[in-house]
């Protein structure tokens, strides 16, 4: 069965399975566990203009409901990324997509200007789903107007490379944000299912995470992610990358049935480094079992 997906002209994926930003490093980390070239695309870790030390420890805790994390995009800045991390990646075999993280629109613009010149970069993800307002710690990108400004800033400097707007399920009106980023020039929307959360350590009488608040991911958030996609799948006219609690081939197909063109595997990559590669191998057999012979007609084909 042909699993290829043309997300936008010039960005063709061998299959609809991608990694989610911040869960797959640069991709190199997973090379011992599978063939990167078998993936639809590699969405890489977050990159900021300047080095960032990341969030205080502890950054990750396991809860009964999933993984709670507040990592804070630790990275050595875009220059280091371009000079030391991009070279040597098998970008002619699989698209590599860095995830841009900034605290203001100007930084988003500059990041885009630097990364769009790199041949190894197939597209750029604008992370609108991280705490990214340096003024008061709130997410300015929850607002459709500012989210659109950030996307537009990246798009203007993208030199024609596709721009993915990763929007947050925390937006008050997620459909409104989706419409706004589409109008601002986003080529693709990615929607994260991770939700805010906190955990406490009873013995120490402290919050478990150094940043107190984190993001909950894992199977518990899959219904949130599916709900999010339903909110805007029929409203926007650009492809959607769904993510949130994806662990199996059936999860991949569920997201596609709700309207996702492609599906990203996130925190499950921490549970087992071989899992994403199985999620590439297994969907064709499941499609055959379910009588699906054409992914494009299956996508968004919910009955009722």
């Amino acid at each position, binding site marked *: 069965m042909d699993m290829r997906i043309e997300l936008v002209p010039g960005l063709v994926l061998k299959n609809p399975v991608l990694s989610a930003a*911040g*869960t*797959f*490093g640069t991709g190199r*980390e*997973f090379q*011992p*566990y599978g063939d990167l070239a078998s993936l639809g695309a590699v969405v890489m*870790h977050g990159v900021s203009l300047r*080095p960032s*030390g*990341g969030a205080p*420890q*502890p*950054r*990750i805790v*396991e809860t009964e409901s*999933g*993984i709670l*994390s507040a*990592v804070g995009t*630790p990275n*050595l800045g875009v220059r*280091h990324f371009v000079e*030391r991390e991009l070279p040597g990646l098998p970008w002619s075999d699989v698209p590599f997509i860095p995830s841009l993280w900034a605290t203001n629109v100007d930084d988003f613009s500059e990041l885009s200007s630097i990364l769009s010149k790199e041949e190894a970069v197939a597209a750029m993800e604008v992370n609108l789903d991280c705490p990214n307002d340096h003024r008061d710690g709130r997410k300015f990108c929850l607002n459709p107007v500012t989210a659109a400004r950030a996307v537009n800033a990246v798009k203007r400097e993208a030199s024609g490379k596709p721009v993915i707007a990763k929007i947050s399920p925390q937006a008050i009106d997620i459909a409104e944000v989706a419409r706004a980023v589409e109008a601002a020039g986003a080529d693709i929307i990615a929607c994260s299912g991770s939700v805010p959360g906190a955990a406490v350590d009873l013995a120490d009488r402290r919050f478990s995470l150094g940043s107190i608040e984190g993001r909950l991911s*894992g199977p518990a958030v899959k219904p949130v992610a599916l709900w999010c996609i339903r909110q805007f799948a029929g409203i926007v006219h650009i492809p959607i990358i769904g993510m949130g609690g994806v662990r199996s081939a059936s999860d991949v197909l569920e997201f596609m049935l709700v309207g996702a063109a492609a599906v990203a595997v996130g*925190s*499950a*990559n*921490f*549970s*087992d*480094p*071989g899992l994403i590669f199985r999620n590439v191998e297994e969907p064709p057999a499941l499609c055959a079992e379910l009588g699906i012979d054409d992914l494009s007609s299956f996508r968004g084909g919910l009955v009722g």
Partner: protein
Amino acid sequence: MTTPIRTELSVADIVPFGQPLPGRDSRYGFYALTLEKPEWKSWQPGQFIMLRPSEGRGRMLARPFPICRVTSQSLVLFFEVSDPGTEELSRLKSGDGVIVWGPLGNGFVMDSERPALLLAYGSGIAPFAGYADMHPAPERLSMVFGHRAPNSCYPTDAMASRMYMEDVLDRTEKEREMFRRSMLSKLEECGEAGGVCLACGPMWFMSWVWENAGRLGVPAQLALSSRISCGIGACLGCSTLTSSHWPDEACAGLPVQTCTSGPVFWASEIDLSEYAAERSS
């Protein structure tokens, strides 16, 4: 460094150490877990593996374990039950399947010419079993081992037969003081003999070794494993702050991933002063 592999292995045996814990339904606090031998080309003491129950079972995150020893037939791990994940692993039975990826990270230096002082605390003794097995001149090894649980809870027998070993209980303030005095005296001897110190244990203990080995000018390697979640540098959850002596200037003074840049670090190349300050406060 050996390329790690992900492999599904079966449990050969799981053996509790020490006595059942009071009030815990006859559960033990320490276990040696023996798995069938993975097809590794090589490994080094100090390296670790990630382990989780087989597909569809268990909690979301695997657990990191230092490699205790590898025999002709098996991979042996030693662990303490410290959270719901290790509690679940303690319920594995012979024949159960597990997923393992490793060997991960780097290992301890091993030099037949240079004396090595091994400092271990609690289940941090695990990597030194394999170290003692593989060392070409075990007569040059000595160990100070501190622990809160009874001695029978730890796999000390084979090590005690291969090297000088000082075993110190650490349950009271007085015992803690004795433990520190023993380590200090051995660190001074190690420095005078031109030796190297290798340490493994909880963070308060590692920061003590970091501080005192640095003060005495004794070269030391520390195996840090706390907060490792994925083991391969993807989750960015584990981090260790580097010092100005870190070999890659671009990362000097910045956090690096413990799992991929370590877990064994030269003490002079990292900065544990935050933990040292926490310990003394």
